[in-house]
C-alpha cells in the first residue's frame, strides 16, 4: 500500500492537473485564478502549448466575461451548449447506467455526494476531483495505480476526450477553448502513462 508521504512528485502533478480541470469545469474562474493562469509559461509539447494558450485566454478575459461564457457553455436557457456528464455522452440521456455503475463504485470507495448538491455524480468536474482524491489518498490510502487506471478506463476515457473536443469547438468557447485542448492533451498523457505502468 502506498502511504501518502510516498506519493511521487509526478503523481502529485497529475492530481493537481485533475484539480485544475475540475475547478475550471465546475465554476467560472474568479479573478484570483485568472491572475495565476495568466502567468503560465508557454512551451513546446502539447501540454505546455495548451498552458500557453490558456494563459493567453486568461489575459484576454475578465471574471464577468468568463462567467457569462460558462453560463452559455454549461447552463444556458434550458440547457447549455455542452452537457458534461458521462451518462449523457455514453447513452444520450442523463441518469443512465454509466451513472449507476459510477455510484456503485463510489460506494465501494466510501465516497458520497455532499448534501445539497443535485447534479449527478458523473459530471466531468466531479470525476476529475475523484481522480485527484484517489491519487492523493483523500478517500483512504492513495489508490494503487492499477485501480486508478481501471477507474479512469471505466468512467473517463470512454467519453471525456469527445467532451474536451466539443468544449474546444463550442460556439461560445473563448477562455474555455484552450481548457478543451488542455483536457484532451492530459487525457492522452494519462492513457499512455497508465499503459506504461501496466
Amino acid at each position, binding site marked *: 500500500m502506498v502511504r501518502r508521504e510516498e506519493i511521487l512528485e*509526478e503523481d502529485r502533478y497529475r492530481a*493537481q492537473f485533475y484539480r485544475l480541470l475540475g*475547478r475550471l469545469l*465546475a465554476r467560472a474562474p474568479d479573478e484570483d485564478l485568472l491572475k495565476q493562469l495568466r502567468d503560465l509559461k508557454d512551451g513546446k509539447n502539447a501540454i505546455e502549448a495548451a498552458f500557453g494558450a490558456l494563459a493567453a485566454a486568461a489575459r484576454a478575459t475578465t471574471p464577468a466575461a468568463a462567467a457569462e461564457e460558462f453560463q452559455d457553455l454549461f447552463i444556458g436557457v434550458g440547457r447549455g451548449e455542452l452537457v458534461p456528464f458521462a451518462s449523457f455522452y455514453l447513452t444520450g440521456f442523463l441518469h443512465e447506467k454509466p451513472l449507476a455503475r459510477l455510484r456503485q463504485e463510489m460506494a465501494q470507495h466510501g*465516497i458520497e*455526494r455532499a448534501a445539497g448538491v443535485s447534479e449527478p455524480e458523473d459530471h466531468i468536474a466531479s470525476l476529475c476531483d475523484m481522480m485527484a482524491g484517489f491519487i492523493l489518498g*483523500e478517500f483512504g490510502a492513495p489508490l494503487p495505480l492499477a485501480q486508478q487506471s481501471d477507474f479512469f478506463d471505466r468512467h473517463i476515457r470512454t467519453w471525456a476526450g469527445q467532451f474536451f473536443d466539443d468544449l474546444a469547438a463550442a460556439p461560445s468557447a473563448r477562455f474555455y477553448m484552450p481548457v478543451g485542448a488542455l483536457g484532451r492533451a492530459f487525457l492522452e498523457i494519462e492513457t499512455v502513462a497508465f499503459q506504461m505502468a501496466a
Partner: protein
Amino acid sequence: MTKDKQAKSAPRREFLKLAGLGTLAGAAAAAVGAPGKAQAATAEAPSASGYRETEHVKKAYELSRF
C-alpha cells in the same frame, strides 16, 4: 516500493516528467493546491451503512455545484 516496481515505474515517471505537467507548479498551483501541500482528510470511521464521508468528499461536490 520493491526494486521490480521501481524499475517498472521509471519509464512512466520519465514520460510524465517530459510531458510537462510540472508547468503548473509555478503558477496555478496555489489556486488548486500545491503538490506536497496536499492536505489529506482523515476519513471518519465507516458508518453503519459502510459509507464514509470526508471533508474532501464534501469539497468534491461543492466544486461541481453551479
